[in-house]
């Protein structure tokens, strides 16, 4: 389909246009059926997507992710049995361990990416999604939704999960590794947070925030 698009004049409503995030090409704003995606005709980036019931779905999944997050942090992640001795560790122990070696840069990096940024991301989303699902816009919504977007690429739960799996397999020939409750909760957390990301339609959230101003 060829889209005829004339440059917007001063009098035209800019809300009728979208620009591609990746290549800046201007498009007429697509109106999408649920479950369809509009892509940039030049570079293929996603311009907009129609997502069904997105507020409730992403809210539910984010709440579930937060519950899993609490479990992940409250229970042991991995245990080790060797020569009659046993140790176990939590996710926080893992993040803080390297302070014993004075490697504070790594401590901060791991603390931020495995714990703080994911948590802040969930909390910022919930702060917006809970009132929005009930038809209200919380104060500072624009700030917190922007913050959620900034935190999300620095939360690395999926990578952390891979690190845990690699550690379990690697240690298998050294000692007996006992996966803790937190490993399974970490799987749940990863699933829910990924699914919440796919369920959410940020364009609609921004439209609601914008119309409340």
């Amino acid at each position, binding site marked *: 389909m060829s889209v005829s698009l004339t440059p917007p004049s001063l009098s035209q409503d800019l809300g009728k246009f979208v620009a591609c995030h990746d290549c800046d090409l201007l498009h007429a704003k697509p109106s999408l059926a649920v479950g369809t995606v509009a892509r940039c005709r030049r570079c293929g980036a996603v311009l907009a997507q129609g997502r069904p019931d997105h507020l409730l779905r992403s809210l539910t999944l984010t709440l579930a992710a937060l519950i899993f997050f609490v479990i992940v942090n409250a229970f042991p992640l991995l245990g080790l049995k060797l020569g009659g001795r046993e140790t176990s560790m939590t996710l926080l122990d893992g993040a803080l361990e390297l302070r014993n070696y004075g*490697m504070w840069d790594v401590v901060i990096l791991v603390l931020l990416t495995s714990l703080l940024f994911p948590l802040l991301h969930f909390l910022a989303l919930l702060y917006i999604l809970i009132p929005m699902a009930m038809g209200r816009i919380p104060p500072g919504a624009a700030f917190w939704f922007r913050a959620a977007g900034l935190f999300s690429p620095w939360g690395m739960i999926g990578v952390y999960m891979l690190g845990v799996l690699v550690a379990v397999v690697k240690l298998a020939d050294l000692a007996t590794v006992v996966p803790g409750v937190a490993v399974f909760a970490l799987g749940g957390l990863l699933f829910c947070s990924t699914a919440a990301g796919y369920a959410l339609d940020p364009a609609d959230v921004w439209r609601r925030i914008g119309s409340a101003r």
Partner: protein
Amino acid sequence: MAVADLTAKACGLVHCHACALISRIQDDHACPRCGAALHSRKPFSLQRTWALTLGAAVLYVPANVFPIMTVVRMGQGEPKTILAGVASLIDAGMWPLAMIVFIASVVVPIGKIIFLIYLLVSVQRRSKTYLGERMVLYRLMEYFGHWSMVDIFLVTLLAALVKMGTLATIEPGVGVSFFGAVVVLTLFAARAFDPRLIWDSANDHR
């Protein structure tokens, strides 16, 4: 310029990087909807990307020269670098693990540095070829960049878990700090690069 190739910038418009609202370009203004600072293109994108990429390339040397961890068993152990760690995984017959660590710690960071330099050079030469392919490269970097963190997480997990005195202990090495810096710098470098610059030269019909 064909009408179909109009960019927001060519129309005097700017796309908000945070909330995607379109507004008219004015000097130094913030998005009327979300308050983010508006820039038609990321400011000093090429300079910042070059600096961060070269910084990552330089730090990748000590990250590989210094050991990232020492496995002490029965009171004995030798500090190992990233590549020595991969080699010992292969010796132990753990091929899949060796592949994961090798890809995350060697292929991804080196690939990112090479691809970023290629993107920077091609933009600076105002190349009009392989536009779609370069876009794919950029997206691959965005998608896979943070997987290099696996090695950092792995070392912290192993160090926190294996603490059995002379029986078995795993100690982190200073290489982790350098490697962490490489990962952070490449992540910032990929974010500093503005993919719209790839297409700007394509629109340049001089």
